[in-house]
């Protein structure tokens, strides 16, 4: 039984110089057999394991992670959470996640630092204005809070934005989702890991999957660097490496893995108390609790697994940031990094069964998976436990690329993917 984190446990542990805190999760060796194995120990994978154990009573399960948990895209994203998507299917999926975010710290007894500071999306030309207004209406019809702001209201909400009509991409308006915001990305992985571990889930780090064993059209187990693990259900949540795992099972996916970059500045006093995103110039910025500006750039256009992107991508983003926020012109950037994102042709994820019985894929989140972490885990757990999708992720099946029933969020989803 885990000790509950509270003000009292904090005081109690202060007397022993914080040296006797209980381990948040064990470091077990893999058992010979599990009822289900999740491949990938990022936020989505750990959340899947957590909800499998909690809601579907599957306790004999494992999460295998080739590195350390939360060390991939979970620890590399810009932590933005929102649900203002255009299409009904996406709105359902992302707002399901947002509703879980709202109670997540309490549920996990782990502070994920969810902060509903609002997300504002800017319009820079007439088509942007029309698109954003249309999306605002669509959001409201789906019960998602959204308001359209004119230039003055944008300036009032975030005073440091340059709203001069003379700039290259003038701000003509924007949308605001007040329930949106940010969370602490590492805490999400750690919180889910701690919760899953408490319910008996084995979290096995430094364990890379090398092969998927099939018996005809069913899964029999996985080959890993820590030996063979027998299981009838494998849920793959491997983000940028999804195609690599799919190839092991002889499957093809409609994915391309590309580098996505982000960077943070030196820490400064509070200057921006919301998240501002711009689709047209592809720049988005928020400020972390440490005071760093957190800036997201775009993807490169070539396939790469190198976790490095091109310099001109960062340069283009910073050009746009400086034009929109002249106050940042003397800020110095501290760190810059890349992650590998798996992008679907319709910029929507895949949460689906496959043609192989017992093999499930949760992938294709592209540049925007972090916001969906709790919802994705919940719905993927449902799909694995029942061998059927939940109604909220039914549209995100793999067969949509054959039927043509795509969820085309490219350019519709408030930011270019």
């Amino acid at each position, binding site marked *: 039984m885990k000790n509950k984190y509270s003000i009292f446990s904090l005081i109690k542990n202060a007397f022993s110089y914080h040296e006797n805190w209980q381990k948040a999760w064990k470091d077990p060796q893999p058992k010979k057999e599990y009822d289900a194995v999740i491949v990938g120990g990022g936020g989505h994978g750990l959340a899947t394991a957590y909800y499998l154990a909690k809601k579907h009573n599957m306790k004999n399960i494992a999460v295998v992670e080739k590195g350390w948990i939360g060390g991939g895209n979970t620890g590399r994203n810009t932590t933005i959470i929102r649900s203002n998507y255009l299409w009904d299917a996406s709105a359902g999926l992302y707002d399901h996640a947002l509703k879980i975010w709202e109670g997540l710290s309490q549920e996990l007894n782990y502070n994920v630092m969810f902060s509903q500071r609002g997300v504002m999306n800017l319009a820079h030309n007439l088509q942007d204005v029309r698109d954003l207004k249309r999306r605002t209406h669509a959001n409201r019809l789906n019960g998602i809070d959204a308001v359209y702001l004119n230039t003055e209201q944008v300036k009032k909400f975030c005073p440091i934005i340059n709203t001069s009509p003379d700039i290259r991409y003038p701000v003509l308006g924007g949308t605001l989702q007040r329930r949106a915001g940010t969370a602490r990305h590492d805490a999400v992985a750690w919180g889910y890991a701690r919760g899953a571990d408490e319910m008996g889930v084995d979290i096995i780090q430094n364990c890379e999957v090398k092969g998927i064993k099939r018996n005809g059209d069913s899964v029999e187990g996985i080959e890993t660097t820590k030996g063979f693990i027998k299981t009838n259900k494998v849920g793959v949540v491997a983000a940028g490496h999804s*195609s*690599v795992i799919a190839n092991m099972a002889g499957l093809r*996916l*409609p994915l391309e*893995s590309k580098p996505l970059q982000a960077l943070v500045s030196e820490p400064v006093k509070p200057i921006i108390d919301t998240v501002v995103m711009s689709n047209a110039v592809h720049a988005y910025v928020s400020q972390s609790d440490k005071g760093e500006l957190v800036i997201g750039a775009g993807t490169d256009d070539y396939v790469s*697994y190198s976790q490095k992107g091109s310099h*001109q991508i960062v340069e283009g983003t910073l050009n746009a940031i400086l034009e929109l926020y002249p106050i940042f012109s003397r800020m110095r950037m501290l760190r810059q990094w890349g992650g590998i994102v798996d992008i679907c042709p319709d910029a929507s994820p895949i949460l689906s069964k496959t043609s192989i019985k017992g093999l499930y894929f949760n992938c294709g989140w592209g540049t925007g998976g972090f916001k969906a972490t709790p919802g994705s885990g919940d719905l993927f757990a449902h799909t694995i436990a029942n061998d059927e999708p939940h109604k909220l992720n039914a549209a995100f099946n793999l067969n949509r690329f*054959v039927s043509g029933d795509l969820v085309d969020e490219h350019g519709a989803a408030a930011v270019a993917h």
Partner: protein
Amino acid sequence: MFIINCPYCGERDQQEFKAGGEAHIERPKQPTELSDDEWAEYLFMRKNIKGVQFERWNHAHGCRKWFNMVRDTSNDEIKLVYKMGEKPPLE
């Protein structure tokens, strides 16, 4: 960022180029005969290899010609470039 050896212009900065995805995907010869599965395979499914992959690139801000490239996607090392229409190297 890397330097790309355009088969027409020589070595240029990557900024001048546009990546065009997986190479040697053949356009269906008889589109009317294709099943939905075959269309999906042609339009959407990609190898997305971690390792040596065949790709198309376009020298967009140069000669604007398309060409092929063999590149290791795990470290972005370019192995070879060759012109459109030329046979892909065997290994």
